[in-house]
Structures are given as C-alpha cells and as structure tokens.
C-alpha cells in the first residue's frame, strides 16, 4: 500500500508527516499527533464525537482520509483556547454546566464554534440544527443549547 507525504496545519502548527492511504484524519490526530481531545465514537459519521474543523468547516474526522488533508488547516478542540484563554464557548459550557461525562463535549464545542463563526447570533432552532450531528447521552441537550446561546451573547 502506498504511503503519502503530507503537510497540514493543525491548531496553527505545521505538520509534515507520512501516512498510508487508509489512515483517517482521526487516527492521525489521536495516535500520531497525540491530540486525544477529538474522540472516536461510532466511526460512521453519526455521533459527532470526532468533529474537527477543516478550513473552517466542521467534519467528522472518522470519515476523512489523512491523505486528503494535505495542505488543509485543521482545528481540533485543543485549538479553541488561545494564549491560555478559553474560547467563549468553553467558558460558557463550564458556567452553564453544558458538560456531564464529557465524551461528546469536544465535538459539540467544535460544531458550536463553526456555527458561531457562520452565524454569530443564532436562534434556538439554528443551534439545535447545527448540533444535530452531535449526540449527547447525558445532558439532555438543554444546558448545551443554553451554553451556546450564552456564548453567542458574549458569555453572560
């Protein structure tokens, strides 16, 4: 099986690496780059635990080949905080208890960040629609939606 030399930017850091054709972006992130914030859930694009941004748009990293990301810019949950400052969403999830077991949280945060980037002041339906690819089995979603609303309002 062929291997491919790829260069990608992950959370602002340029990475040069070699991957086999059948390595997913998720495997590359977790097992080679050590970015285990992105979770491996269903491996079928259903649960959203592996959501990351590619060139600003959210994707399921379990459904992307690493080789495809040559030249791309990736942001994972580890890249949301800047200079030691939590993203407004992360702060709001803490404030509003949008987290229980935490397994879905990285994916939810990344999907919500993408939403706020394309629609800074979403209504509740927009929030639910944007997060319908992120399954949470603990919170019942109410506090997640509240936290996203609060972050959109500026974290109050």
């Amino acid at each position, binding site marked *: 099986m062929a291997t491919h030399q790829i260069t990608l930017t992950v959370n602002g850091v340029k990475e040069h690496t070699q991957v086999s054709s059948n390595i997913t972006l998720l495997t590359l992130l977790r097992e080679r780059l050590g970015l285990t914030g992105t979770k491996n859930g269903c491996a079928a694009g259903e649960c959203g635990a592996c959501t990351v941004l590619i060139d600003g748009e959210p994707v399921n990293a379990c459904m992307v080949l690493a080789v495809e990301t040559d030249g791309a810019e990736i942001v994972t949950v580890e890249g949301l905080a800047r200079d030691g400052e939590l993203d407004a969403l992360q702060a709001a999830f803490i404030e509003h208890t949008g987290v229980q077991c935490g397994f879905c949280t990285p994916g939810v945060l990344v999907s919500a960040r993408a939403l706020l980037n394309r629609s800074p002041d979403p209504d509740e339906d927009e929030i639910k629609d944007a997060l319908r*690819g992120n399954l949470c089995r603990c919170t019942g979603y109410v506090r997640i939606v509240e936290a996203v609303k609060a972050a959109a309002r500026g974290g109050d």
Partner: protein
Amino acid sequence: MELANPGLPNFDYVRATTPAEVIGLLLQHPDDARLFMGGTDVFVRMRDGAMTPKLLIDVKRLPGLTEITYDPETGLHIGAAANMNAIARHPVVLEHYPLLVESVNAVASYPLRTRATMGGNLCNASPCADTALAALLLEAMLVAAGPDGDRAIPAGAFFLGPGKHALKPGEFLTRIEIPTPPAGWAGRFIKLGRNAHGDLAIASAAAGGYPDESAPSGYRFRVALGSVAPTPIRVPEAEAILAQGPINEKTCDAAADAARAAARPIDDVRASAKYRKAMVKTLTRRALVEVWAMLQKEG
C-alpha cells in the same frame, strides 16, 4: 510509526487531476476501484465489509467538480463533488431551487454535509436518496464523462435498482444540470424518518407545480417518492389526475391515492411496507396541499 486503522481495508489512494486519468483507472480496475468524493457512504461500507476497494480515486480536485454555476438559459450546474452545504447556501440555489435546499438539508447533519456530495448521493442509487427526489422532480440531467466522451442521462433514466445506476464501465458522474424551474413553480419535499432529523427516510415525497394553460386544470404537477420502491420514482398517475383537475382537496386526495398505489415498498428495519404505503398517501397529500397553497398565493 505504522498506524493501525481497524476497520478499513488496505487500499491505495489517487488524487486524479484529469478526467482521462479517472476513466483510465476505472477501466484498468473494473472490479476494485471506487470513485471517492465525500466518502460518507464509502467509509461506512468499507467498515461494514460491504466494500473492499483496492483503489480509491479522489475526483474532488478535477476542474469543475466542485463548481456551482447558474445561467437562466441553461439552468443550475452542480459539480458532482460539490458538497451539500455549498449547495444549500448558494444564493442562486436559495432563490430558484428551494426544493433542492430542502432535500439537501434533510441529509444527516451539517458536519456530514460538509463532505457529502449530491453526485455521491445520486450514484449510491439508494431508493431513499434525498437529493434524488429533487433531481427527478426538477428533471435534472446527469452528465457523465467516459471513454466515449460526455453523456447526459435524464434523472428519470438514471436509477435502475437499489445501488444500480445507468453509468457504464469507465464512466463517472461529473455534473448535475438542473433546468430553471417553469415560471410560477412551487415545490415541497417532505421526509419521514424515525427521528425528526438526519435519519434515512422511511418514506419521502416531493411535489411541485406550476401554471400551464394547456392543462385542463390550468396547472401541471410533478410528484416523486423515495424509500418506497426499488428506486426513487415519479408518479405519472398522480400527475395526470392533477393536470385534469380541478385542483381541490378531493383531487389532491385522489392523487395521493395514486401515489400510494404506485408505491411498492418493502418491510425493513425502519418500517413495515404497510406503514410506508399509508405514509406515502399522507406525505403526498400534505406536499400537494402545501404546493397548491403556495401556487394560489403567487397566482
């Protein structure tokens, strides 16, 4: 360090740069090469063991494959590998093809639609493919590149059976051409899944209509169904009832009955055939009534 990737077979990956390269590879590997666009179905099938390709041919960077263009004369041209979010947010699609937006947004979730493509959705030739109903109803032409040059296939002749389409060996879909809808057109797509969002359809119905003086009722309607036959289908019987008219609750009901009669669903994990039949009638009637309301408002 060699990374393990449980679940995926061993395959090679090629990022194609010309259509000729793709055609050559498809002809060279007739049984074990797969076209690769968004991968949202290919990944699932590879992990299920249902598909074990030796070669994935990525066509996303071929010229024009992710382009979306519009011309009132020639209509909307969607590159086969344009992702569904790009389609749904395109200003022209929003303005002229709201039915297409409805059907695209019925697919899975936003992150999945960042990758999923209309070309892939059509080429899966699944009876439940959401965008297939829009392609049928809007009478799209599906353009394939192949060893004998380009070939345009009407959407109505594209789907041959579950997972089977009209592409020949060496051909691949490059573009979906959707004519500008007739003047006064209104359309509606309704999908019923096991949950409110994202699931595959138990049954789906699309209806559209437009004023046409040559029809006795003064209107032409189109009706399409998903998940209730070996392929997505149009229902000419229902369309004939509405062309005859007059358009009212009774004829909408009769057209919905015709749709129910045309449906040949199966029992599966998502629903029984009997339930699907009943839902075809409900969804078709609902879509028709909504389209009729929109037409009256515009007229």
